[in-house]
């Protein structure tokens, strides 16, 4: 989820850039100390691999496919500090050459995906290390990495005053969960494949774990939890504010009524109806994506 320019308010992008810039600089210094000069091409090449790996689609059933995001894989193969640098480099190239994510929003995107995403993704591996729980750690890591990045992006948009309807928030949360599980499974499958071909490669690089990264990872997860709480509360806070100031009359859009306020019209106001509204939204988005995918595939094959 790369935030483009023009959506974040000045305090949000400026504040996050102020956090991200020194953090990335520190990661770069650390990575430079840890890696011999010979690994500079390695870091760039592994970043290029993450780019290219997005063309490899993993079939997941239901007519859809998923691809690698890469945070956990980078942290496990290069070490977390170098992973932060490589992920930042990837986001930079995406923003500059592919217009995928904004340039002012780069600080925010780096914070979400390169700093918090990598730290949260590495957390289970930092705790459980290379023992028997390694596979589980990778799975949980993938989920945390994608979930934390996504939740932070939503919270930043909300903080910037972008009104995201509660239904859409629920749907996004479900999508992050699914994508997170897939990221974990893909990372695990990829590492197993690598091990089958060249068993020696991974043992050299995955030895580092440290208390420092455990703390940073926990911090990332906590920040994301706080952000999730904020994002889920913010619409209510904003709504009560608008009602108090008396401008709520226009704010209730007629068009939005089918799924308004989490409720489907044929069910009561219980949590079941919220779940149902979320699921209906999910199915609608799924069908829309499927349709767009089929159309674009048809265009491409011409």
């Amino acid at each position: 989820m790369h935030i483009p320019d023009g959506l974040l308010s000045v305090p949000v992008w400026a504040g996050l850039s102020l956090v991200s810039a020194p953090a990335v600089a520190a990661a770069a210094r650390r990575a430079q100390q840890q890696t011999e000069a010979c690994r500079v091409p390695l870091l760039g090449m592994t970043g290029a691999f993450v780019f290219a790996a997005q063309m490899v689609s993993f079939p997941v059933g239901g007519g859809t496919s998923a691809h690698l995001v890469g945070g956990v894989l980078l942290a496990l193969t290069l070490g977390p500090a170098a992973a932060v640098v490589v992920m930042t480099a990837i986001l930079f190239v995406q923003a500059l050459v592919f217009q995928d994510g904004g340039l002012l929003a780069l600080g925010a995107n780096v914070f979400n995906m390169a700093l918090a995403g990598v730290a949260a993704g590495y957390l289970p591996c930092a705790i459980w290390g290379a023992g028997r729980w390694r596979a589980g750690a990778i799975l949980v890591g993938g989920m945390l990495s994608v979930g934390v990045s996504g939740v932070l992006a939503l919270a930043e948009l909300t903080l910037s005053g972008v009104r995201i309807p509660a239904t859409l928030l629920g749907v996004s949360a479900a999508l992050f969960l699914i994508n997170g599980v897939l990221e974990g499974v893909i990372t695990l499958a990829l590492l197993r494949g690598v091990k089958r071909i060249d068993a020696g490669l991974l043992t050299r690089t995955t030895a580092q774990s440290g208390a420092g990264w455990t703390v940073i990872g926990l911090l990332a997860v906590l920040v994301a939890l706080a952000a999730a709480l904020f994002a889920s509360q913010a619409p209510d806070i904003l709504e009560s504010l608008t009602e108090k100031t008396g401008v709520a009359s226009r704010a209730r859009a007629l068009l939005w009524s089918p799924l308004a306020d989490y409720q489907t019209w044929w069910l009561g106001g219980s949590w079941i109806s919220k779940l149902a509204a979320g699921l209906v939204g999910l199915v609608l988005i799924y069908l829309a994506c499927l349709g767009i995918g089929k159309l674009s595939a048809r265009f491409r094959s011409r």
Partner: protein
Amino acid sequence: MHHATLDQWARGSSALHRRDARVKWLVLVAYLAALSATRSLFPMCVLGFAALAAGAIRLGRLPFAGVLARAGVVAPFAGVITLFTWLGGEGGRALAVLVRSYLSAVAVLVLVGTTPLPTLLSGLTSLGVPRFLVLVVQFLYRYLFVLSEQAQHMRLAAASRGWQAGRWRPDPAGFRAAAGVAAALFLSSQAKAQAVHRAMLARGFQGRLVTLAPPALSIADLWFLAAGVGACAGLWLAANLFG
């Protein structure tokens, strides 16, 4: 391919191509910041920002249609947000979101379209971005298309053997096959990195890329900086005074 067009644009020659990369970075950031800090985008103000972007495209002799079409990549994400803001009953703000993200993308494209990436990156180094990070970006960009092409070949090979990504039924064998392809690509990237490094050592690499010293700022560069930043600041001031 996308990058090929951009690289082609960047090799052109115009008044904007000749400006120093550092100066262009500063003007771009000023433009983006002014656009982002202007809360109420009324029509005159939008016209002002659009005119600046159009002037830059003209000055850089870039194809108008090409730049405008390419900037449309931001439409899906910004479009969704716009749609929901619109449905929330805030038509004006919804439009502002769309205009802002579109013009920002145009501005970034003008920078990338008038400056080769190595020059852009060395400009960043002299603006204080960590050299190590810039070096990684440089390697990443250099080998991005090599590996992408390899991935495409692998995809083509798989497709010609009857492999399909979007099946309805869960497809564990297909999933494992994809993992194998990705693993092979990964190992090939690691081997390439080693080979590249050996070749670099053989040519006397000592931990940093040596470039010619960045050219000193010319008078024209300084004028461009003053004019660009001044115009952006002026628009921002005007928008906040009259908006």
